[in-house]
C-alpha cells in the first residue's frame, strides 16, 4: 500500500470544514494558547498516539502508510486545522473521524504532542523482544485433519485484508471467502489492520497474516483460527514464505531489520540489520521493502528500500547473504518470472523497474516504467509466444500509464495510457483481461480498468465504487474480486469474461485480496507449469 498524500475533497466538505474552522477559531484563539498546558494535564498523549495513530503514521512519528506526524512535518500548521482533520477524518483517504472516540481535551493534547515531538530514533525490537511476544492460541496436535467446511480445493479460498475503519479494533480482520459461491467461510480477528496474507506452498492448511503493526499470525485454514502469533517489529509489510514451506522472512520499516522465522513454530531464527551504501554512495540504515520466496531456489530475496540493494539469503547454515547493490533508488515491491529465477523490482525514485537474475545474483537490466512504479504483487501473462509483464505506477504525473514489458527480451513493449495512478494489477491465465486499479484521489478512484491481453488496449472501465483497489482473480480465473476500499465497505465480485457484477460481500474497509491459488502460479497471470518442483 502506498504512502497517502492528504487531499481533501473539493466539494461540500471544504465549505463544511471552513465553517467549522471559523466557528472553532474564535474559541481556539482565545483558549488554545493559555490553556494548552493546563488542559492537557493527565492526558498521556504518547499513549494516545500509540493506541490510535501509530499503526498508520509510524511509532517513530516517521510515517508509514500515512504521513509522518512530527515537529518538522507539522511546523507552521494551524493547530485548529489539525484538530479538524482528527475530528472529521480526511476524506478520500484511510484517515477516520475521531470525533466522539477521543475527547476534545485528548485531541488538543495530541495535536500539541505531534507538533512538539521530533521524529524519534528508530526504536529497538530485538530477537529477544520477538521471542517474548510469541503467543500460542491452540494446541495444533488436536486440530482436525480435514477442513471443517465443504470446499473442493483450498485454492478456491480468497483471503481479504479487512482493515477496519480505524485500522484497529473489531473491524480489523482477515476474511476468507469461497470464491466459487462468494460466501464467507471464516474470519480471523487481527487486532490491527491486516495488510498481507501469504500461504504455505507445501502444507496447504497454513496461512500467514501480517498486520500493520508487524504481528504475524499463523492461521489454520482447516478450522479458520489463528494458532500462533509473533510481533516482528513496529510496522512494515514485508513477508515471504520459502518454497519448502519451512521458513518465513519478515521485514520492518521500524526498526530497520528483518527476521527469519521457523514457519511452523514462528520462533525467530536470525535477525538482519538492514543497512548499506545507497546508489548515491551514502551509507544508510534502511526500511525493509518486499520479501519474496521463490520456487526457483531455497532462498529469500529482500529489498532494502533506502539502500537500493537486494539481498539474497540462502536458507542454509547461518543464512548467508549475497548483496546486490545499486539496484535503484527507493525500492519497494517486486514479482517473479522465468520459473522464479528472475525478479522484477520497482524503484520509486528512478521510475524504473530493475530485472535481477537470482541465479547469477546480478542486475540484468533497468527498464523504463511510468512515474513511481508500484508493482503490487505484479502480473505476467503468456500471449502469442511472449511472456509479458504488467507494471502499475501510482505517481501523479501528466502521463499515467501501465507498462508492458517483454520479460524474455527484457524490453518495453508498450506504455498503455490509463485514467490515473495505479497500484496493483491482476491477471489470470484463464481470464482475458488484466485489471488495474485507478487510485487517483478523486472520482477516478472508483474505477478499475481492464486491459485486453492481446491488443494491450484498455477495453472497459468498471465503476466499482468507494476507493476501488487490489483486484484479484479467483483460482479458476472465472471471477474478479475487487475491494471497494475506504468508503465502499464491500468486496465486489465480477464475472471475469462478461464483467457483470455477480456478488457483493460486506466488509469494513477491505484492502488487499490474496487468492490461495497464488501458491500454484507464482505470479498472477502465469500457468502452474511456470513453477519448478
Amino acid at each position, binding site marked *: 500500500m502506498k504512502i497517502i498524500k492528504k487531499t481533501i475533497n473539493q466539494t461540500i466538505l471544504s465549505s463544511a470544514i471552513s465553517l467549522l474552522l471559523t*466557528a472553532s477559531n474564535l474559541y481556539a484563539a482565545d483558549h488554545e494558547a493559555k490553556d494548552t498546558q493546563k488542559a492537557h494535564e493527565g492526558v498521556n498523549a504518547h499513549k494516545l498516539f500509540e493506541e490510535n495513530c501509530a499503526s498508520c503514521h509510524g511509532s517513530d512519528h516517521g510515517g508509514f502508510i500515512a504521513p509522518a506526524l512530527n515537529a518538522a512535518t507539522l511546523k507552521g500548521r494551524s493547530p485548529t486545522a489539525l484538530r479538524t482533520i482528527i475530528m472529521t477524518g480526511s476524506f478520500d483517504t484511510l484517515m477516520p473521524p475521531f470525533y466522539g*472516540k477521543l475527547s476534545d481535551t485528548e485531541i488538543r493534547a495530541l495535536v500539541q504532542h505531534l507538533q512538539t515531538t521530533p521524529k524519534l530514533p528508530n526504536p529497538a525490537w530485538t530477537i529477544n523482544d520477538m521471542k517474548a511476544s510469541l503467543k500460542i492460541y491452540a494446541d495444533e496436535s488436536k486440530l482436525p485433519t480435514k477442513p471443517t467446511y465443504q470446499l473442493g480445493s483450498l485454492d478456491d479460498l480468497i483471503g481479504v485484508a479487512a482493515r477496519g475503519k480505524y485500522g484497529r479494533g473489531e*473491524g480489523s480482520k482477515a476474511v476468507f471467502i469461497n470464491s466459487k459461491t462468494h460466501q464467507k467461510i471464516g474470519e480471523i480477528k487481527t487486532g490491527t489492520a491486516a495488510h498481507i496474507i501469504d500461504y504455505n506452498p507445501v502444507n496447504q492448511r497454513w496461512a500467514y497474516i501480517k498486520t500493520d503493526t508487524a504481528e504475524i499470525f499463523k492461521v489454520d485454514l482447516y478450522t479458520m483460527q489463528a494458532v500462533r502469533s509473533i510481533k516482528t517489529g513496529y510496522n512494515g509489510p514485508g513477508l515471504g514464505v520459502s518454497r519448502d514451506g519451512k521458513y518465513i522472512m519478515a521485514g520492518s520499516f521500524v526498526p530497520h531489520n528483518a527476521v527469519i522465522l521457523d514457519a511452523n513454530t514462528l520462533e525467530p531464527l536470525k535477525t538482519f540489520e538492514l543497512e548499506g551504501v545507497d546508489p548515491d554512495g551514502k551509507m544508510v540504515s534502511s526500511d525493509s521493502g518486499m520479501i519474496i520466496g521463490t520456487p526457483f531456489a531455497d532462498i529469500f530475496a529482500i529489498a532494502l528500500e533506502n539502500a537500493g540493494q537486494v539481498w539474497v539469503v540462502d536458507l542454509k547454515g547461518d543464512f548467508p547473504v549475497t548483496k546486490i547493490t545499486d539496484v535503484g533508488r527507493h525500492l519497494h515491491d517486486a514479482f517473479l518470472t522465468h520459473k522464479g529465477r528472475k525478479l522484477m523490482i520497482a524503484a520509486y525514485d528512478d521510475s524504473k523497474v530493475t530485472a535481477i537474475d537470482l541465479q547469477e545474483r546480478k542486475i540484468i537490466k533497468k527498464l523504463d516504467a511510468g512515474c513511481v512504479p508500484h508493482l503490487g504483487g505484479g502480473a505476467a501473462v503468456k500471449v502469442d509466444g511472449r511472456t509479458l509483464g504488467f507494471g502499475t505506477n501510482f505517481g501523479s504525473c501528466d502521463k499515467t500509464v501501465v507498462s508492458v514489458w517483454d520479460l524474455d527480451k527484457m524490453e518495453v513493449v508498450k506504455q498503455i495510457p490509463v485514467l490515473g495512478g495505479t497500484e496493483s494489477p491482476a491477471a489470470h491465465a484463464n481470464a482475458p483481461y488484466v485489471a488495474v486499479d485507478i487510485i487517483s484521489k478523486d472520482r477516478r478512484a472508483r474505477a478499475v480498468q481492464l486491459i485486453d491481453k492481446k491488443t494491450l488496449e484498455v477495453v472497459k472501465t468498471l465503476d466499482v465504487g468507494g476507493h476501488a483497489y487490489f483486484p484479484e482473480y479467483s483460482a479458476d480465473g472465472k471471477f474478479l474480486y475487487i475491494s471497494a476500499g475506504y468508503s465502499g*465497505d464491500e468486496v465486489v465480485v465480477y464475472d471475469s469474461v462478461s464483467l457483470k457484477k455477480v456478488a457483493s460481500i460486506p466488509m469494513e474497509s477491505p484492502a488487499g485480496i490474496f487468492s490461495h491459488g497464488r501458491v500454484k502460479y507464482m505470479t498472477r497471470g502465469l500457468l502452474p507449469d511456470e513453477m519448478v518442483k
Partner: protein
Amino acid sequence: MKATIFFPLVLVALSVSGSLQAANLFAGQDRAANVCAQCHGIHKPAAGAPFPSLAGRDAAYLKEALKQYRSKKRVSEIMNAIAGSLRDNDIDDLVAYYSKLKP
C-alpha cells in the same frame, strides 16, 4: 448488486413524490458516499464507531434532523458544520437514499 436495486427504487421515488420535485437517489448516493459515510458508513458505521446508523431510518426523521442541524436548533459542532451547507434538495436526495437503503 446495487444497480438492480436502484432502478426499481428510482421508480418508487418518482411515484411517491408525484408531481413534486423528485429526490435524486443517485445524487443522494454520491453525497452519502463522499460525506456522510465517512462517519456513518453506507449500511452501518464502523465497528466501535460512536456514530448512529442511517441506513433504513425513517425518512421524516432524517429530514427533520438534518434541517435542525442546519438551523442549529439541534446543536452539534460537527453536524452543524456539515449540514450547514446542504440545500433543501441535497437533504431530499440524502434522505431518499439512506431511508431506502437496507441496513
